[in-house]
């Protein structure tokens, strides 16, 4: 049993690349990510030619920093979808966590308590969801639909719709800079890279793909699917908590509402980024890129003088185009 030819599939000729077909493999493994990345780059080039102010530091900061929290939430969402589940309650969860965090900050607790609380509470709430999905075997869309009502209703009945103001300045981490870069951008990039590595190089990460790809086989392989399901929801809760910190600290006040349909935005980012809604495929890099794409489109439309009223229509059309392109690409491959 010689070990020859292990780096080289037998039939293909050796080329200058480390592995033959490495480029092809990159395209096949990260196809959707590349599509999104290309779209972002193309958009930047076109819009900058129309209006050079598009790549001003101010605008770039607002594109990246202002939407970083969506990307962070989409990391957790991608993990949940890869495992074959879905969460439609994350928007409401972020609202609740923001209120908790803000209340603690205003009440005079140390800022680190106010920062850590949403992460811990997010994990706790989503663990309950995970238990209902994994052990009580209620479909995740049903559980999270219920959770959406509970969290949304709970938020408004507790706050009565009032805003939290008078936040201590040291609490507002999203407005700070580190090494000259806004903290949200650093957080988004670092968290995406860490999560991507973890999904690729840890047995835990791979087991999520296994569970989403073929739950029955995962069980037969000895993967504790129930425990992993609870864990992935808990981790998603932690990312929702991290997203909350970025969301709640970007302004001087915390509103009692989150942007409408935030959960759908987060899910869309995951899916456009290449995470199959059927589970088992996709990466967190894709979801972050997709978030950036949406933000870029939103900003670009303003710079090329499209009326703000048509913004969502154009975004909707682009989402649809991406989805159809992806389907045609997959059909071509099959």
């Amino acid at each position, binding site marked *: 049993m010689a070990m020859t030819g292990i780096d080289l599939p037998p039939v293909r000729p050796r080329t200058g690349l480390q592995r033959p077909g490495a480029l092809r493999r990159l395209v096949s493994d990260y196809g959707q990510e590349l599509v999104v990345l290309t779209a972002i780059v193309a958009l930047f080039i076109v819009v900058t030619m129309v209006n050079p102010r598009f790549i001003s530091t101010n605008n770039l900061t607002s594109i990246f920093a202002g939407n970083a929290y969506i990307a962070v939430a989409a990391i957790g969402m991608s993990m949940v979808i890869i495992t074959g589940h879905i969460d439609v309650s994350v928007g409401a969860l972020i609202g609740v966590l923001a209120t908790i965090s803000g209340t603690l900050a205003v009440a005079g607790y140390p800022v680190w308590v106010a920062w850590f609380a949403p992460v811990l509470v997010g994990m706790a709430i989503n663990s309950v969801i995970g238990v209902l999905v994994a052990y009580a075997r209620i479909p995740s869309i049903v559980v999270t639909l219920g959770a959406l*009502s509970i969290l949304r*209703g709970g938020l408004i009945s507790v706050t009565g719709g009032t805003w939290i103001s008078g936040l201590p300045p040291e609490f507002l981490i999203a407005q700070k800079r580190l090494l000259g870069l806004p903290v949200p951008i650093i957080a988004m990039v670092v968290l995406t890279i860490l999560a991507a590595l973890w999904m690729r190089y840890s047995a835990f990460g791979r087991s999520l793909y296994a569970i989403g790809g073929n739950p029955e086989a995962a069980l037969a392989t000895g993967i504790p699917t129930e425990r992993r399901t609870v864990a992935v929801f808990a981790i998603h809760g932690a990312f929702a908590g991290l997203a909350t910190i970025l969301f709640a600290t970007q302004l001087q006040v915390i509103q009692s509402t989150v942007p*409408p349909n935030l959960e759908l935005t987060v899910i869309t980012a995951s899916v456009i980024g290449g995470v199959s*809604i059927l589970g088992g495929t996709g990466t967190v890099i894709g979801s972050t890129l997709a978030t950036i794409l949406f933000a870029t489109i939103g900003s670009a439309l303003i710079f090329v003088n499209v009326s703000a009223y*048509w*913004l969502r229509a154009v*975004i909707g059309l682009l989402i649809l185009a991406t989805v159809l392109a992806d389907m045609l690409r997959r059909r071509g491959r099959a």
Partner: protein
Amino acid sequence: MTVKSIFRHETLLALLLVAVLIVLSFQSDRFFTVSNLLNQGRLMTEIGLIAIAMTFVIATGGIDLSVGSILGLTAILTGVFWQNVGMPLAVAACAAIAVGSFAGFCNGLIITRFNVPPLIATLATLALYRGLAEGISQARSVRGYPEWFYVLGQGEVLGVPTQLWILLLAAVLASIILAYTRWGRTVYAIGSNEVASRFSGLSVEHTKLALYTASGFAAALAGVIFVSRVSTTRSDMGTGIELDAITAVVLGGTSIFGGRGTILGTVIGLCLIQALKNGLSLAGVKGDGTIMLIGAVLILAILASNLFERSGTR
């Protein structure tokens, strides 16, 4: 009648509804009055129409998230066609409903022709249709409709709110279709095993196309009724109504994976949600508290029926 059929989801849910009605009528003497109940029926109609169509869609194993956006688009178009384009109001409303149905047809086309999973397809059109509503309305609202138009949303026929008649008619028709016709059987077959349905010579694509179009039509009709009820148009009308409708359908025992579900269950689910909303607000609970309770009821109802089912079969 076997023991198992007594423990059917619908039966449990109906018992729960009766219990809720009794408790609520003790809480407030304004609750169990004819005028209050009829008024609640009025408020329930828009979600109801959407939920009835959604029952079919979910029973095939699909979902339609774009209904709220179609509702908003139709509402805006009704106003625009009438005031800006200058159509007679009746024509404008019909044209708007036609556009809404066409929007549903497009959903169906994307799903059947391009094999896009329904969740993704309608997530995309949710953004698109709402965007069109916003773009067309430019944040302007259209008011001042002729008196006759308000009959639909605010008037009564034989002492019962006009739109409640529409809802009743839709519910009766839909339950007959789903339970007793070939089309209904096809819906369940597709939801249980789409491939086998195709191999049995059933027209899977046509059926789905028809259902998503019907879902668009129901949302569009609900949109016109909505405008008539609140006397104005706004582009954010119906935001989030898709989740309310899905809640009612799932609460009513339709399996989110398809293959199982009844219109009766959906209607009971709707009534339960509306009764909770109204009863609790009369009893002094703030509106948002009731939303919480509905979420909890949804989870608990599915949990209970899961437990019954498991002990029943295995």
